[in-house]
């Protein structure tokens, strides 16, 4: 009531001073957002645009001259075997980490939600890796993967499964890094699914029960799964984008080896740009990386658009 009365008395005065008010608001808008916009362009959008421009030149770090060479860097990429290995490794890593961590995250969320006891403990225990310093934990995993004294091989030997030197075996190294990625990603996926599950209206389960869906599997298939659709798309995209950015574990544990078996896009970009100082070539690699990340976001938007019809 008070609000309405207040608005009524103000209305004439407001329209009288409308033009002055609008000008003041325009000024306030730019003054308040100006510093952020300037910094955004200086630190993020400008450099991102510069990377694209740089990828069409021949500049090497510190060089005095710069030449426009069109798509030559991309042509060179297409013939670069290390690039194709990096791209394939990145895609294999993503294809390994995303399904496993999404499936495990969903499973953990469903199991935690389906009972009352120890909820907080399980949630905290499974979430803890998300907040941990990946780099420090990578060194712990290095020890756990140790061929003779590592706990992983000790456990495998104890149950009679053949072991390997995980980080030195070209066939196993990428998957060993993927296991670290999964270890860190499951907790995040779990809390995102928990939030998604909370948003499922309770009465839908009752309605499903009346329809005869009273088994756990039927409930899941007919209510939970369809209602989780948008959350699932979101979780898959987030995990895929984060997995695409894999770098820390590669840089510290394998340095892209053995024999390029764990070179990934960002690691090759780091080597080309900051070890070999080929800035323009590294910029082209960055653009390929950016292209894949944008593609993932685009797919997410497409899927969510379709999904809204069900929501």
């Amino acid at each position, binding site marked *: 009531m008070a609000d309405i009365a207040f608005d009524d008395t103000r209305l004439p005065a407001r329209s009288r001073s409308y033009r002055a008010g609008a000008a003041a*608001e*325009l000024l*306030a*808008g*730019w*003054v*308040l957002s100006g*510093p*952020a916009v300037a910094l*955004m362009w200086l*630190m*993020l959008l*400008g*450099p991102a645009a510069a990377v694209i421009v*740089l990828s069409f030149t021949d500049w090497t*770090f510190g060089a005095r001259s710069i030449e426009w060479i069109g798509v030559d860097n991309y042509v060179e990429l297409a013939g670069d075997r290390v690039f194709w290995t990096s791209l394939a490794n990145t895609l294999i890593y993503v294809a390994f980490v995303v399904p496993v961590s999404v499936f495990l995250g969903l499973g953990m969320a*469903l199991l*935690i939600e389906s*009972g009352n*006891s*120890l909820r907080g403990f*399980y*949630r905290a225990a*499974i*979430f*803890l890796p*998300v*907040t941990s*310093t*990946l*780099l*420090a*934990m990578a*060194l*712990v995993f290095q*020890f*756990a993967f140790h061929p003779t*004294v590592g706990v992983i091989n000790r456990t495998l030997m104890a149950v009679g499964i053949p072991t390997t030197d995980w980080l030195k075996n070209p066939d196993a190294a990428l998957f060993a890094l993927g296991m670290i990625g999964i*270890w860190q990603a*499951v*907790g*995040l996926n779990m*809390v995102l699914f928990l*939030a998604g599950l909370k948003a*499922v209206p309770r009465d839908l389960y009752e309605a499903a029960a009346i329809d005869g869906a009273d088994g756990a599997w039927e*409930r899941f298939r007919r209510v939970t799964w369809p209602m989780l659709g948008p959350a699932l798309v979101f979780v898959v995209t*987030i995990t895929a984008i984060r997995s*695409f950015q894999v770098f820390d574990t590669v*840089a*510290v544990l394998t340095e892209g080896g053995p024999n390029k078996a764990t070179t990934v896009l*960002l690691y090759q970009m780091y080597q080309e*740009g*900051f070890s070999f100082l080929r*800035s323009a070539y*590294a910029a082209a690699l*960055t653009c390929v*990386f*950016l292209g894949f*990340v944008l593609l993932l*976001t685009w797919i997410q938007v497409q899927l969510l658009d379709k999904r809204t019809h069900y929501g």
Partner: protein
Amino acid sequence: MSVLASAGRSPARRLAFSAFRHAVLLAASVLTLGPFVLMVSISLKSPGEIFAPEFSLWPQTWYAWENYSLAFTKQPLLRFILNGFFITLCIFTAQALFALPCAYALAKLRWRGRNTVFVFVLLGLLVPPQVPAIPLYILLWQVGLLDTYAAIILPSTISVFGIFLMRQFFMTVPDSLIHAARLDGVGEFGIVWRIMLPTAMPALVAFGVLSFIWNWNEFFWPLLVVQSEHLATPPLGVVFFANAEAGTNYGPLMAAATAVTAPLVIAFLLAQRWFIEGVTMTAVK
């Protein structure tokens, strides 16, 4: 509750399901907590015991003092950790100072250019943090700032994610609050800091928690711009340590890893709710 469990079934089946639930979740907890336990366990052991053929979690001879004192004296580990606090604090302060006024202008003011600025924010959200690295490196090199605290801090001073998050939060603040403040003669700048900031505390704390996690753990960018040991962030410091020790002296190395991980783990245990809410609210990066 009703997500999976078939309530109303026989007590025996419910008991069986409960046992299954605890068995799987306990196994998962062992796997997620295992590396932390292993890390602390090794940090307490002597070199001989670490490479001994039989393994036990509890150290037979207590070697904690030797490992931790070596970790803190061989390399300036305490300095790395203080660097971590200093850098994360500077970054978050700057992020909040720039993001809050901008978010307020986007959420509550009507002005020509607002949509354009919001499009910039959305564009910024699409760009992974590694993409601007090469031009930023060149820029910092040209102004002579490489290998300084400024080089680590400056690129993170703006968080489009923070602007987006705070804008979403400000949208829910009632306009009447702002009108009342204007009637009382409070300027737009005063509204941001005296009216909006207090109401935005929950969102700001959640954002602060995320900013702290990201920037404490950030490795890619500090690796590029820092060469001097005394400027190293905690993750970079651990790598310096590993390189200096050739990566085989596991006891002190795990002590260093424990020391670097501890602040985040302690913060998480103290403010679990904020962590999980913050990450859930947001999880964009």
